[in-house]
């Protein structure tokens, strides 16, 4: 139901040509599209009803993410509607409540400023928040901040005396400099420099020295939704490939009659189906038993990463020369798959978490 409605909307409002149009215009984001999504309740899908959301849960958010993956929709859904909302929900004070209401209305965009190295590693934070009067001064560099250029607010993770602390700051605060990056998937990514940016105690999300209490659930939610997006991406790439196998003729026959390609296509379909199970399971676990969902989420992200990469590689190969052209859309799938593979932890990162849970 939700999936059908989402697909119906996205086929009209954000098909593959939408991303291409943005890319050709040098844009990363379409504010009007996000307004429409917010009007349909997508921005507030995880926001409590009391603050203007529909509170439909992570399985439902995964359904939306998956559909967005099919047509490679570029929008702030993951960073704002999933990661930031889940973080804010852990806090539950009045300020968080009003932030949630603004997110649900599509009026506030967030970006998570966490990574400082080229590989996801949420503990490896060197950005410092030094005590300064009643508040803090933040200095350091954040890399690969997704939606970092467009965001109104930043969730900044910084080291304090006794651990890591999460700050919720306006992106235009003095001492914050944002440099947009030109990334292969044509999305909004920025590097951020903090140079003595001031924060008050009220800017702390959750407790000082205890960022992970707020951040860990948010990361899990983001990883699960990203995995769902990747499973949609794999399905979208596969649908194109399957169509081409039936239509392209060589040696007087559709190329899909060649058993070498049939078996590879069938194998890929199996991988997509198996990954779909891991995605559904992660959404279910996040809704039913979030404290114990870590393995399910990592299983989903690991599987989705491997499957999306297989889907795009087979996608290009089975299209032959046309698969390598910019005019053809398969390249967009390949580029997004690579970025999504890295963001929020790659295959190895998540396979390690699964392995630990399984006695390795």
């Amino acid at each position, binding site marked *: 139901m939700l999936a059908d409605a989402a697909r119906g909307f996205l086929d009209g409002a954000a098909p593959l040509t939408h991303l291409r149009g943005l890319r050709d215009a040098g844009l990363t984001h379409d504010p009007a599209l996000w307004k429409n999504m917010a009007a349909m309740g997508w921005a507030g899908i995880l926001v409590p009803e009391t603050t203007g959301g529909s509170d439909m849960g992570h399985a439902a958010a995964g359904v939306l993410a998956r559909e967005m993956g099919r047509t490679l929709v570029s929008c702030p859904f993951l960073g704002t509607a999933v990661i930031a909302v889940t973080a804010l929900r852990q806090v539950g004070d009045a300020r968080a409540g009003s932030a949630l209401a603004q997110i649900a209305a599509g009026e506030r965009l967030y970006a998570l400023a966490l990574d400082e190295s080229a590989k996801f590693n949420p503990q490896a934070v060197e950005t410092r928040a030094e005590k300064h009067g009643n508040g803090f001064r933040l200095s350091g560099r954040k890399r690969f901040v997704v939606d970092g250029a467009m965001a109104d607010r930043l969730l900044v993770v910084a080291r304090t005396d006794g651990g890591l602390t999460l700050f919720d700051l306006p992106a235009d605060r003095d001492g914050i400099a944002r440099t947009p990056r030109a990334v292969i998937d044509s999305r909004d990514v920025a590097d951020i420099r903090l140079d003595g940016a001031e924060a008050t105690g009220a800017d702390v999300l959750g407790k000082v020295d205890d960022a992970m209490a707020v951040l860990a659930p948010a990361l899990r939610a983001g990883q699960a939704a990203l995995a769902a997006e990747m499973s949609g991406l794999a399905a979208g790439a596969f649908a194109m490939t*399957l169509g081409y*196998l*039936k239509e392209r003729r060589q040696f007087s*026959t*559709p190329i*899909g*009659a*060649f*058993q070498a390609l*049939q*078996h590879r*296509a*069938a*194998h890929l*379909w*199996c991988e997509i*189906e*198996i*990954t*779909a*199970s*891991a995605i*559904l*399971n992660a959404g279910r*676990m996040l809704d*039913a*038993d979030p404290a114990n969902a870590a393995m399910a989420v990592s*299983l989903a992200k*690991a*599987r989705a990463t*491997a499957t999306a990469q297989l889907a795009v590689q087979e996608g290009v190969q089975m299209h032959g020369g046309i698969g390598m052209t910019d005019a053809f859309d398969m390249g967009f799938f390949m580029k997004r798959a690579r970025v999504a593979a890295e963001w929020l932890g790659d295959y190895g990162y998540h*396979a*390690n978490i*699964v*392995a630990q849970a*399984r*006695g*390795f």
Partner: protein
Amino acid sequence: MPHDDPSGFRAELRDWLAANCPEEMRDGASTEDSICWGGKNWEFSSDAQKIWLDRCAARGLTVPTWPEAYGGAGLERAREKIFHEEMARIGARYPLQSFGIWMLGPALLQFGTPEQKARYLPPIARGEVRWCQGYSEPGAGSDLAGLQTRCEDRGDHWLVNGQKIWTSYADRADWIFALVRTDRDAPKHKGISFVLMDMESEGVSTRPIRLISGASPFCETFFDDVRVPKDQVVGEVNRGWDVAKYLLTHEREMISAGGQVMGAGRALGAVLADSETGQSDPVLRADAMRAEVDGLAVGLTLERYKDRAEAGQGAGDASAMLKYAGTELNKRRLELVIAAGGTDALDWADGRAPTWLRTKGNSIEGGTSEVMLGIIAKRILGLPG
């Protein structure tokens, strides 16, 4: 994750298991020698094995999803899950496993006459009659519909002549369900019938074939002027292919899940932890981690397809996916198990080596991986040719 239990079914079952499952049957064993296959000539490995079978049979728990009228417990999916969870919780062995349960039963429930169901199903449920499967022939393997075993209408009986091969446990089975050709002129799929034969019938003989894994569980099976009563054809005459295909979807699901049944379901992390090399070899570790990730996802997929199926129905064409993925994975897992064991795992007596060798057949029996991929390509993906 525990499932809802509004009616107290779980609690009641738990009490029953506690009171009735003998201690010896709670060792979680699922190796070949721990299995109870049942049948007229079955020699129970212990009193406990017999007691456990009889108690379960009396409650319909050898075939929990079958209707009560035919020896089952009529459990729908939610309760079936609870049943498996509670069995696993105490490490209970399954009381009975058989081709009758996995293959013939579902086919009879779908295609059998009321008389056939009443006659054949309860003895399967009680473990009294053991069945084997006569599909493959020397000239008909992957191209199963090319089978040539003849079955002629002789008025008051059928007369069967021909040969089957790779018939698992034919030398220990009481009855065989077999595919035979009843019309030699029809297109190959349209002249096949599904017949049931007593292995004690005159003219049936078997010759064991030894497997690479040492044991000899399969046979050549010969039919030499075997007379078969008229009421032993399941489904319509010459429409046996429909029955055969339906049965195969259940067989494939069973083989897919077999990885778990055969004890390979143990977390690979635990396997490596127990081994000398497993901890220190980063390549082995990485391979095992990948296999573990894939294994968990395949397991979830099996469950998802069971949840989706109508009561008693299988996954249909998607059983090809389950079989392909499950068996290829099982082979990978056992390669890792044996690699982790190093030279310790290479003795026949060790158990790992025979299991490892046996898994090589998983991707052949019940239709090869290549055949599964072909089914997916054509029936699910609609590719031409």
